[in-house]
């Protein structure tokens, strides 16, 4: 066996917070060999990024480390800055989560790759450019000769991530650290990037340290898996071992809460009342962002028709930019529609005045994507929840407090949380507050705009349970917008698929997931990584074969 590229022994990171050292990673022991992928998985806050930053010696100034990190047999922990600079890039390269912020927007990608090359090697500008084109070809960005002179904003998200990888590969690093490399990307793009990384690993024989919370990605990439919880290593083993025979209860729980496509039985809708009138009816709706200055008008949604009946959950899936959020916002009158007809509970919203809109909104509720931004940080959550009730003149004073407490109890939060501020709550709790607010007026239709995309899997699982329970009690209709097919699979009765502002396919859940008709739906489905290494391998090969 060769010597490991990265060897971490007894590595501990602590952070100084208000007079106490808080450990963020405790006694980490692992090694990565050439041509091998080690995945560190864990929920947010488990310390997985801290470990990666520690390996790069890029921790914040209030951190303290102990133990040992050896890269190719050389100790790097506490090494002088000069040595570190040489080893970053040359031996270890880092791929960041968000390519848009990690690439400098004022330089072309070629410039940034060439800069890395010339920093590390004695290279002339022409030589470096040729090498940069070679690298860009390697990461399969189309038309490398031209793409080298493009700025980050001229590339798509996936291409940007490719450019980042090209930059990371510039010096043939022995170790590649990828910190959530695909979290910001759509599933189809994610599948391509993962293919690329797998190909590069075999081509360049570098070791990869993959950090992610997505078990599907892990199943796709990892040879070995390290599970972290609260800064500690919980379990460490080969991918098969972890996925098939997890030992630690935390690992079992983590794997159990990952939503799997097609694993839940079909939910039956209660037989509809006589002559069901749709709660939400979109009739060939077109939504346009008006032109601003020289920027021409942008049609976000075109000729979109969908009906949602009482008590029904309709999942709306699509990749980013497909216009699904736009539909959700238009449905509660936050965006004007240009053509077509939009009816909420039998009332036409398209030409409604502000006053009428306010009436209509009493029958609707919305849960937003980002729990950090959707609650006013300066208001106690009780006030946030009570606001719709107060403004609709339903309750005041003591009575209002009572109703707010009941709503809190409904979403399984302690009543005493009424006086808390949003920043004192965890992400999942905040999202519950979001639901409580949306349900305050007992709406007929709830719009849920990616409510779980900012949550960890175990929190997401509990949140989805809660949403289902509430839906069964209250029988509201729900438009559930998500990019995650597995989540939609758990919840929805019917699914609608969107692409580039157009409705591609609608049907019951089984129709869409088991026998998709439209090629886009098929592509979307095959790109979803399954949290099972063996199955994922079969799916991957099938997908590549069909290309």
């Amino acid at each position, binding site marked *: 066996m060769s010597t490991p590229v990265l060897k971490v022994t007894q590595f501990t990171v602590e952070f*100084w917070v208000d007079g106490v*050292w808080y450990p*963020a990673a405790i006694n980490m022991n692992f090694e990565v060999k050439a041509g091998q992928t080690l995945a560190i998985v864990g929920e947010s*806050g488990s310390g997985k990024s801290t470990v990666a930053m520690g390996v790069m010696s*890029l921790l914040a*100034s209030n951190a303290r480390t102990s133990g040992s990190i050896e890269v190719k047999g050389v100790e790097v922990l506490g090494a002088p800055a000069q040595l570190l600079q040489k080893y970053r890039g040359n031996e270890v390269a880092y791929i960041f989560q968000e390519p848009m912020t990690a690439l400098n927007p004022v330089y072309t990608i070629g410039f940034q790759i060439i800069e890395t090359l010339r920093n590390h090697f004695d290279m002339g500008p022409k030589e470096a450019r040729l090498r940069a084109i070679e690298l860009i070809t390697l990461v399969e960005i189309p038309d490398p000769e031209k793409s080298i002179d493009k700025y980050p904003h001229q590339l798509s998200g996936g291409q940007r991530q490719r450019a980042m990888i090209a930059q990371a590969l510039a010096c043939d690093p022995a170790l590649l650290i990828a910190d959530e490399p695909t979290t910001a990307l759509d599933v189809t793009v994610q599948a391509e990037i993962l293919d690329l990384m797998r190909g590069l690993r075999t081509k360049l024989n570098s070791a990869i340290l993959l950090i992610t919370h997505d078990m599907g990605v892990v199943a796709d990439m990892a040879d070995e898996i390290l599970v972290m919880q609260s800064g500690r290593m919980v379990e460490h083993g080969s991918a098969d071992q972890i996925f098939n025979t997890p030992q630690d209860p935390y690992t079992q729980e983590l794997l159990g809460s990952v939503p799997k496509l097609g694993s839940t039985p079909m939910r039956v809708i209660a037989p509809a009342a006589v002559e069901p009138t749709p709660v939400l009816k979109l009739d060939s709706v077109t939504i346009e962002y008006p032109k601003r200055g020289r920027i021409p008008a942008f049609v976000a949604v075109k000729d979109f028709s969908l009906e949602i009946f009482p008590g029904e959950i309709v999942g709306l899936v699509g990749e980013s930019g497909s216009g699904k959020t736009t539909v959700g916002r238009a449905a509660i009158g936050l965006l004007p529609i240009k053509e077509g007809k939009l009816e909420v509970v039998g009332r036409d919203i398209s030409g409604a005045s502000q006053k009428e809109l306010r009436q209509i909104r009493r029958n609707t509720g919305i849960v937003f994507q980002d729990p950090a931004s959707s609650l*006013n*940080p300066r208001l106690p959550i009780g006030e946030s929840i009570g606001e719709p009730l107060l403004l609709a003149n339903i309750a005041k004073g003591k009575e209002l407090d009572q109703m707010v407490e009941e709503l809190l109890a409904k979403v*399984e939060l302690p009543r005493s949380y009424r006086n808390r501020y949003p920043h004192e709550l965890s992400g999942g709790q905040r999202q519950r507050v979001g639901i409580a607010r949306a349900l305050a007026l007992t709406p007929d239709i709830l719009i849920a705009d990616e409510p779980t995309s900012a949550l960890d899997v175990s929190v997401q699982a509990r949140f989805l349970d809660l949403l289902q329970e509430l839906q069964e009690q209250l029988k509201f209709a729900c438009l559930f917008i998500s990019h995650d097919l597995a989540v939609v699979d758990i919840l929805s009765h019917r699914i609608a698929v969107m692409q580039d502002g157009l409705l591609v396919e609608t049907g019951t859940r089984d129709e869409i997931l088991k026998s998709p008709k439209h090629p886009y739906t098929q592509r979307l489905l095959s790109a979803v990584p399954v949290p099972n290494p063996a199955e994922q391998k079969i799916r991957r090969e099938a997908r590549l074969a069909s290309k």
Partner: protein
Amino acid sequence: MNFFKRTPKVVPRVADSDIFNKETEGLSQSQIVRGRFIRHRGAMISVFVLLSIIIFVFSALGFKILGLGYGGWWKYNSIDMTPLRSEGCPGGLGGCPTLDLLPGKNFGLGDHPFGQDDIGRDYFALVMRGAQRSLLVMFVIGIVAGLIGTVIGAVSGYFRGWVDAVLMRFNDFIITIPTIIIGSVIGFHFGNKGVLFLAVFLGLFTWSGLARLVRGEFLTLREREFVDAARVAGASNRRIIFKHILPNAVGVIIVSITLIMSGAILLESALSYLGFGVVSPDVSLGLLISQYQDSFTTRPWLFWYPGLFIIVISLCVNFIGDGLRDAFDPRQRRRLSRKERSKNHDLTTVAKAGEIN
């Protein structure tokens, strides 16, 4: 509402003992800001010094508001003339300060601690009077400019479109007029109407920077989802602006108002120095300096004391503004001292600090 019957099952969350909540558990945002401000040593000293100056200045000479007044503990006022005292003065000049902080037979305040001016008025009384005026100008400009700037910035940032265009072009227009010239014109025409009038007018021309900052803040805050949530809840524009967005912008507003105030005291001094601010027989610190600029070489105390007050007051206000800005900025982190770095760690308090960097 029969569906409210379920009993809540409260699951203790690991994240509740989260490292981030350690300091903030059970605290409102304003309490956190207050705590951080109190820890800022420079700002706290400045608050103390400024308050002492205000109390000292207003109690020394007395004041009169709406008929209610207080006489003050100092024996002279700023108008009466007293015979020039010349014993013990260097070079036979009259009216030198009697304040002596060195131990000796002259130790103490003496008859005229800050000396006398050339016609025999007590200079301590004059400086106190001047400081009163200057402080008044400072606060009035702060309030007037703060109100106008906040409202104009909030309205143009919230409504955007043509409202924004019109208000911001008006703002550009105000910015292009040099304040010192506007002040001169106002002082020249209306200087005799009193210091309050001058302060209000100056406030009408110093809000432009604040308006831009508030507008910028509103432009970003209005895109946040809680604004949409409030709109869905049925909130009116006014409610959204004042109840939802403004409290989130209060940090920017407070900080820039304190900076306007420290600028205001300098502006008033500059105008009075040029002869367009406060006019005789009323005095302000700037006016005192301007009146006695010729005597700098012969009777420098006429220069020292008002200058000292200007410097101390504007320094204090600047420091307070600095402390407030730090307190409102959540990203502020202290550097670690060596002692703290080597402190023993405690592995039993396992924290989740993964994303702290």
